[in-house]
């Protein structure tokens, strides 16, 4: 199901959370709302879900204006940052909740519910936890149960609010790959909110970069990274260096740099402050004379310039772009 957000505004008191938001999401797309905290991304997600009412503007699902439609009737699955599982219910009952709440005429029989819940639990690979209570589960398990619960009512749109925000780094990485795969499989129009650019880059088909209640740029991960629309997007999507060259200041990413042990034309000299092997790449921090900010250079770990390099040595670097 496609989603169309038209001229949406929302203020909380004097604080303008969303300012003239326009966004269209195609059916089956996986879109990330990316931005720093307080940029309005969660508010936008909640407005799409119907948990929040916009001050003005429209939300359109598949051509139908749902702005005035209640959450219950929008048929969206919502996954909360802190899972919001029902503590007094078992995992099974949590997942079955949506099916059991259906009006009597549409409600499936208990045996159908049973099969459906187990199928969903198998899909999130947690069918062996059906009889446990949420407090007996780990964070990653809870998040997957929350997802299974949201999917039980067969929503046409899946909305996730910082779905991996409360998890540790490793689980987070596993879970987001898993989510990307799941999306491939069931191909449900999905929108998720994150403040982690890496997460957005890794999972999303398209990224909506937001800041201070407005959309700064919409594009594929490659587009927003390679062709950032403005300074904000450039800085938000990755680390950057600033270098004073004669009378102008230039910016470049840590990986957009060439290193050399010998002085070469157009290269600048820097004293090695720190060397950090980070797996496939190694980060070298350089102090350049005449400027406060250090330069960070990221090169492949077997780069010739790194061979036997020690702190305190002088290294020559050149931004690739310029």
């Amino acid at each position, binding site marked *: 199901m496609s989603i169309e957000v038209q001229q949406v505004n929302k203020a909380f008191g004097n604080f303008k959370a969303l300012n003239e938001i326009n966004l269209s999401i195609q059916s089956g797309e996986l879109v990330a709302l990316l931005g720093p905290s307080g940029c309005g991304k969660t508010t936008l997600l909640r407005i799409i879900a119907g948990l929040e009412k916009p001050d003005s503007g429209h939300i359109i699902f598949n051509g139908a204006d749902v702005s005035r439609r209640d959450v219950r009737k929008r048929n969206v*699955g919502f996954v*909360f940052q802190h899972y*919001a599982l029902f503590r*007094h219910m078992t995992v099974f009952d949590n997942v079955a909740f949506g099916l059991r*709440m259906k009006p009597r005429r549409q409600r499936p029989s208990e045996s159908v519910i049973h099969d459906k819940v187990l199928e969903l639990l198998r899909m999130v690979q947690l069918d062996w936890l059906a009889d446990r*209570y949420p407090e007996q589960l780990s964070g990653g398990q809870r998040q997957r149960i929350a997802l299974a*619960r*949201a999917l*039980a*009512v067969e929503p046409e749109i899946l909305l996730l609010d910082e779905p991996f925000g409360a998890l540790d780094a490793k689980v987070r990485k596993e879970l987001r790959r898993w989510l990307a795969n799941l999306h491939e499989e069931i191909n449900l129009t999905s929108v998720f909110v994150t403040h982690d650019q890496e997460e957005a880059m890794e999972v999303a088909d398209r990224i909506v970069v937001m800041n201070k209640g407005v959309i700064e740029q919409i594009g594929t991960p490659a587009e927003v990274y390679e062709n950032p629309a403005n300074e904000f997007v450039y800085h938000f999507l990755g680390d950057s260096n600033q270098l004073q060259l004669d009378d102008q200041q230039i910016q470049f990413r840590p990986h957009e740099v060439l290193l050399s042990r010998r002085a070469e034309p157009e290269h600048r000299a820097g004293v090695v402050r720190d060397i950090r092997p980070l797996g496939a790449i190694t980060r070298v921090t350089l102090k350049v004379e005449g400027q406060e900010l250090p330069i960070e250079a990221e090169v492949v770990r077997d780069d010739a310039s790194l061979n036997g390099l020690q702190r305190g040595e002088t290294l020559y670097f050149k931004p690739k772009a310029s």
Partner: protein
Amino acid sequence: MALRPSPVIPGFNLTLGYTLVYLSLIVLLPLAGMLVYASKLSWPEFYAIVSHDRVLAALKLSFGAALAAALLNGLVGTLLAWVLVRYRFPGRKIIDALIDLPFALPTAVAGIALTALYAPRGWVGQWANEIALKIAYTPLGIILALTFVTLPFVVRTVQPVLEDIPRELEEAASCLGANKFQVLRHVLIPALLPAWLTGFTLAFARAVGEYGSVIFIAGNMPGKTEILPLLIMVKLDQYDYLGATAIGVMMLAVSFVFLLLINLLQRRISRG
């Protein structure tokens, strides 16, 4: 029961010993003394005292009114807690502080104030009188006094639990298609029930034993508006110590059965 030392408070033996001595001195000994004193009566004598019409009428009134007051506070107290937790309005802090006042006020003062208000010529009583409703000097008045005295229990037990229930829980339920009634029935009530039951039990237990506020508004007509604690006082005034003790023992037994049942119910609920 787990017989392993708590990692937080050192000295399991010491703490358990202290607890038992304390409980014995404050709670068990007076109760046991009462039982020993009552054992001077033979069973037929005891039965004769507690099955007297006047005693039975007072028993019904005491427990009935306490149950009614606890239920009333169970409803209104939950509502109060809800309003205090979920809404922000001017004067909220003041209302919050007012809730505890019934505990601070001497119960006799409460009883006299309520009587003055609800007596047939009182401020409220005269209006009630016009629609032929008598409040003071009827069981209704007793329930009113008990409700006043036990007001804080349910509010104060439900309030913190309600504060701990995130809004997200209700939102999650509505996203899953639950209507307002279903959210209340399947999400909020199950989460609140254990705390509510605790508040209800406290209110009920306190109401059964309440004396000071009731005697002013009850009118104390034997067999009609006479509560058990008053009956015990009457017996004491007549130097009938054994009779008073017998009634006390009976109250204790009935209360114990009630509290035990509620406790069992609570355990079943919290086990899910």
